[in-house]
């Protein structure tokens, strides 16, 4: 099994990475941090939330300065942008999208004295840490809400790219939906893009036309909630509280708090105790959460969500605990078993209840 082998190598990387590296302490005043963004700060979603986290970090560490480069394509241009940061004095560089992975490695090799943090990838190095959040946990919770609110039992899911991160989110959401409503199904449309408000809106409309009365989404802008508001269907946002895009139809949204991680990292770098680690924080660490519920969400539903949330935060149970079946009805995770982080990070199959295919 090549995949298992790859995961073993990945884990080995993590171990080696965590074992033996610390960067000399740097006074906060002298620290410059650079952020590579995949979209514009004004996307109202993914990049907007990263920037919010960056500002939180700046506030917490007076003297620490940071700069950003927006809309950097996930291609060789990323190398130049990161080099530009380093050449202008950045000692800490955050690359906030998966597609920068190879390029982070390339630049990090040349600058062993600079700390690189790569979001959502799986390659680390002595001076490269990775970070992400267990957004699948609040996605599951938002699925509970969606499953309770649907009347047509068809829920639409506007999904960016068919990669494990997004697949995991769809699965967690569907598990939530089916937990409270076993008859409901989740229809997926792929965008093959992270940020394309036009496509996001079109996909939303197509899902509504095919019978969806709740829309969930994994994309970087607020276009899907806007389209849902126009069509008067419920919507579960993503990244941040998207109720401003859908004031009357927004149910809730799985949201990020990147500031938690950015402050944690800056603190380590300031103290000189930074080590390469692979961070995957969840509801417990409050790196992810749920946006406030919309007015139409009944208290009974809120109660269900609170109970499930408590189960996850306590650590007694997590979303991908068996029995879980795939689309064909085959048991993928046996009853009582919990999926490993490695399997979650490379997830490439849909759970029962998802209607859609993963390009192979």
């Amino acid at each position, binding site marked *: 099994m090549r995949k298992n*082998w790859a*995961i073993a190598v990945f884990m080995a990387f993590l171990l080696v990475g965590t074992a033996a590296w610390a960067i000399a302490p740097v006074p906060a005043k002298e620290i410059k941090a650079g952020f590579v963004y995949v979209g514009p700060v004004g996307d109202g979603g993914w990049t907007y939330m990263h920037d919010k986290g960056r500002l939180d970090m700046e506030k917490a560490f007076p003297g620490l300065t940071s700069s950003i*480069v927006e809309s950097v*394509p996930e291609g*060789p241009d990323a190398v130049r942008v990161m*080099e530009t940061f380093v050449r202008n004095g950045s000692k800490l560089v955050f690359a906030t999208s998966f597609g920068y992975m190879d390029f982070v490695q390339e630049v990090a090799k*040349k600058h062993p004295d600079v700390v690189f943090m790569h979001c959502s990838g*799986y390659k680390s190095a002595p001076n490269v840490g990775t970070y992400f959040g267990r957004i699948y946990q609040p996605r599951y919770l938002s699925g509970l809400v969606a499953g309770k609110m649907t009347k047509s039992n068809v829920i639409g899911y506007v999904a960016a790219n068919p990669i494990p991160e997004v697949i995991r989110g769809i699965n967690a959401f569907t598990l939530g939906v089916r937990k409270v409503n076993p008859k409901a199904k989740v229809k997926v449309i792929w965008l*093959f893009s992270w940020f394309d408000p036009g496509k996001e809106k079109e996909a939303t409309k197509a899902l509504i036309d095919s019978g969806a009365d709740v829309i969930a989404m994994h994309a970087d802008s607020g276009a899907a909630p806007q389209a849902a508001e126009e069509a008067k269907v419920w919507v579960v946002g993503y990244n941040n509280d998207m109720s401003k895009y859908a004031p009357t139809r927004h149910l809730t949204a799985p949201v990020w708090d990147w500031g938690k991680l950015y402050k944690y990292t800056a603190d380590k770098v300031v103290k000189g105790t930074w080590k390469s680690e692979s961070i995957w924080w969840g509801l417990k660490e409050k790196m992810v959460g749920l946006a406030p519920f919309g007015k139409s969400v009944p208290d009974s539903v809120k109660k269900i969500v609170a109970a499930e949330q408590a189960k996850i935060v306590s650590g007694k149970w997590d979303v991908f605990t068996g029995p879980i079946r795939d689309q064909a009805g085959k048991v993928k995770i046996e009853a009582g078993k919990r999926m490993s982080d490695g399997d979650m990070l490379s997830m490439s199959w849909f759970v029962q209840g998802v209607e859609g295919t993963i390009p*192979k």
Partner: protein
Amino acid sequence: MSAPFRVERRLDCPAWLNWAIPVGAVATALLAGAVLLFFLGVSPLAAYTAMFRGALGDAWGLSETIVKAIPLTLAGLAVGLSFTMVVWNIGAEGQLVMGALAAVAVVRYAFVDSAPVMFFLMFVAAALAGGLWAGFAGFLKARWSVNEIITTLMMNYIAILLTEYFIYGPWRDPSSLGFPMTAPFPAAARLAVLGGTRVHVGLILAIFLALLFRVLYRWTRWGFELRVIGNNANAARYAGMDYMKNVLLAMFVSGAVAGIAGMIEVAGLQGRIQPGFSAGYGYTAIIVAWLARLNPVGTVFVSFLLGALLVGGDTLQVVMRLPLASVQVLQGLILFCVLGGEFFRNYRIVPVGKGE
């Protein structure tokens, strides 16, 4: 009431204007940009210095500018060739992507552990892939007068979707944990780079092709036919030039060069493809070709300048903390003024005397 001046067509353009117009245009743009920067609360002088320093101020900046200029030059030459005969190949982006895809296919299915052999194979495969992709649109135009602007543009989307199909599907790297990217190229399939920079042998190829195109346009029969068809297709037909053959050939060569740009980009820089690996070079190439007034050697210089603008733009964001939007406005101002300056090459403004 009449305006105090009138616009008059120039019969010929004095030599000094060829230099004065671009210089004046850039100066105008920088002045207008200075006003913008001033209102953004940034010292224009500091910003321009940062931009210049980032792109051209040291060996690294210069090397990165060249890295950007290489695919722009090749793609600019590609579209320039078709524009010369007034055939509008808007599909360099798709042809470039097809070239990159062909290079990946060669590495995947016909790998030989020898750098020269690999270079040759990838070169031929990319040229064929790009050439046939554009040639198909050329055929439709030559045979049935199908509008090539529409076909080449639409074929861009097909090419990109086709590439995504392979990246997400059969060619996905099995060790990428399900993430969309092809397997990394072995060392023999990568292009040689200059020292510690990212400048690769594509530079030599780009300059060589630019000179070759210059010779082609100026001193060969085919170049002459291209220009005549561009000036007046009917006259060319009347003179016995084969329009159909020339459209096909021009589109094929145009696509082939764009395909080579794609292969150079993938083998020279990342050594694998992932979604969105082309930063829109095929589209920027259209601006390059027009700024260079379809002159092959000019294309090299314009690509270099555009590369410098893009590289300098990063420094503006990092050092001056300007948002991308204002950097793009600055870049847009320069392009706008340079293109607008072309007006003065063909027209002049004459003050209207009292007696008229």
